[in-house]
């Protein structure tokens, strides 16, 4: 038996050695379901006008971003005609012949410490240039520059803001039993550049971004109980915000960044509180004997949406601040919870429980119409993209925790899986 255990350990160690490495936490993206009638776009390779070869293939990153949004059909490079040297040389005909409705061309001009990315967007069918742009970025941030280019191209073509420059925070879990490791990760919106912000052998839960994108709040069990921490993403400075008796959970920043809503059971049952981040003062918002948790702010900061089982099963309620009567919003399915509010404040996406399991649903707050967005069995922890175009969430694939994303209308689906272990509870950063 001892021998067998030793062999197992060696196997596991071998597995870890192979799995660890710079790419360990990289998320791989697959578009599982797209929209027919996506807009055909050509993205020409961005020429590197400096010594040596290009440090990043910016054109490729832009193309991949656009394709991932599900709104674009990005034409493969082999099928592209030669790109014009500059906007003055643009001729629509060869691009129209290649099937493109829009064209992006660009070049990179290295200066001392930075690179100028210059690019132009053309409407091929209308035979006109939509715009030309020049972005200076530090050399080591070319990838982020490429995301910024993607945002601008997205906005030029669709009229909506892009969210490719935003980042995602999520919880990663690797290993088994006593070797289980929980990590808090921050990555680009395409899963690249993952960075481990915090590591623990006890659970990490509920990451949420501050509105300025500089801090995260989350729940950590590092002291063998749930406590709320604030963590600066740039400096790594960390502080405990709530460690009251009982549960300290579900922290979420107010839109003005000055307060935190959270669920505390310091008085016996979980109720909602608002913490003033300057003074640390607490205001109790709900007073019930039921479970009140998972608060989400309306964009105007005037009310909270939250989960409560005051009527038996968990459902979503809305309460105006500083507190008062709560109005029940969900009636379909056997349960509802974990609401996230669209940036325009017009709809909620939440987890609906029913016969098939847990799925994401969208509630239009004006018409009260409910639309199911996903078909999984354990779709949880939804988080809206800052431009409202997509929702990222936790799902499972053959027992493994993965991230999924779905377009606002439920038509475009993608999955993001870690190369090893589970990933869950994604939170999309502000722009």
């Amino acid at each position, binding site marked *: 038996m001892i021998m067998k255990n030793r062999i197992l350990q060696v196997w596991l160690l071998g597995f870890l050695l192979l799995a660890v490495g710079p790419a360990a936490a990289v998320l791989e993206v697959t578009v599982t379901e797209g929209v027919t009638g996506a807009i055909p776009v050509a993205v020409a390779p961005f020429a590197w006008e400096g010594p040596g070869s290009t440090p990043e293939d910016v054109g490729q990153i832009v193309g991949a971003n656009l394709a991932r949004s599900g709104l674009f059909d990005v034409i493969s490079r082999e099928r592209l005609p030669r790109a014009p040297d500059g906007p003055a040389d643009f001729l629509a005909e060869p691009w129209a012949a290649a099937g493109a409705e829009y064209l992006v061309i660009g070049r990179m001009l290295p200066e001392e410490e930075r690179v100028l990315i210059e690019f132009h967007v053309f409407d091929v069918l209308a035979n006109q240039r939509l715009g030309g742009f020049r972005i200076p970025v530090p050399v080591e941030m070319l990838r982020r520059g490429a995301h910024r280019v993607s945002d601008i191209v997205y906005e030029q073509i669709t009229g909506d803001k892009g969210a490719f420059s935003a980042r995602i925070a999520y919880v990663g879990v690797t290993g088994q039993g006593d070797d289980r490791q929980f990590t808090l990760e921050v990555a680009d919106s395409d899963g690249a550049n993952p960075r481990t912000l915090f590591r623990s052998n006890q659970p990490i839960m509920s990451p949420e971004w501050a509105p300025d994108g500089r801090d995260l709040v989350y729940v950590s069990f590092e002291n063998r109980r749930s406590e709320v921490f604030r963590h600066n993403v740039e400096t790594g400075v960390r502080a405990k915000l709530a460690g009251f008796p009982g549960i300290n959970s579900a922290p979420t920043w107010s839109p003005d960044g000055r307060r935190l809503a959270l669920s505390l059971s310091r008085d016996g049952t979980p109720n909602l509180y608002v913490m003033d981040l300057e003074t640390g003062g607490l205001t109790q918002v709900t007073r019930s004997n039921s*479970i009140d948790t998972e608060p989400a702010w309306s964009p105007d900061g005037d009310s909270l949406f939250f989960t409560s089982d005051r009527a038996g099963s968990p459902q979503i309620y809305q309460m105006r601040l500083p507190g008062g009567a709560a109005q029940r919003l969900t009636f379909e399915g056997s349960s509802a919870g974990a609401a996230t509010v669209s940036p325009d404040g017009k709809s909620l996406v939440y987890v609906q429980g029913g016969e098939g399991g847990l799925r994401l649903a969208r509630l239009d707050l004006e018409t009260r119409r409910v639309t199911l967005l996903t078909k999984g069995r354990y779709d949880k922890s939804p988080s809206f993209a800052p431009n409202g175009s997509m929702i990222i969430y936790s799902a499972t694939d053959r027992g493994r925790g993965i991230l999924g994303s779905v377009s606002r209308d439920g038509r475009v689906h993608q999955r993001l899986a870690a190369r090893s272990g589970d990933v869950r509870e994604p939170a999309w950063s502000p722009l």
Partner: protein
Amino acid sequence: MNATTRWALVLLMAGLLAACAQPKRDLTEDERQAMEAAAAEADAAERARREADARGLGIDRDLQADPLDDPQSPLAERLVYFDFDRDTVRSEFIPMLEAHSRYLSQNPGAQLRLEGHTDERGTREYNLALGERRAQAVRRIMTLNGARDSQLDVVSYGEEMPVAFTQTEESWARNRRVELVYDVRR
């Protein structure tokens, strides 16, 4: 160190270096499956150990005559299971909880941690609250039966620390639990 040993060491080092220098390669399907099987087996062993610990059968415990270590005693039982989305303690667990309450009242120095857990069906923060409610339900029964409030510590892990990992009713039932963990035994 004689010359032979020295040469053996040099050769060993060279071998190790050569092994390290080998380029990484992708796993074959067989290797991957073997590793997954090994990982699953290790996982099962870990689970068995955890559950044995929770039942008081842990092999690491010091083996003195302690009723907590008697596998025949109801004190050997350390797990209370729950129905889906419920915090009602089923009657089958009452005798066991009464025995632990009696033990605590007889050993005023003993400290018991009640760890509440849920299955994965439900939203995460709601489950954290549900786990606490389950642990509090167990605490109420124990204080009614003679345990002091100060001897009991309630902690909830929600769905974060499952002991069973398949997505079946059997696994969910094992995860919906309160674990009785003695921090101080007497």
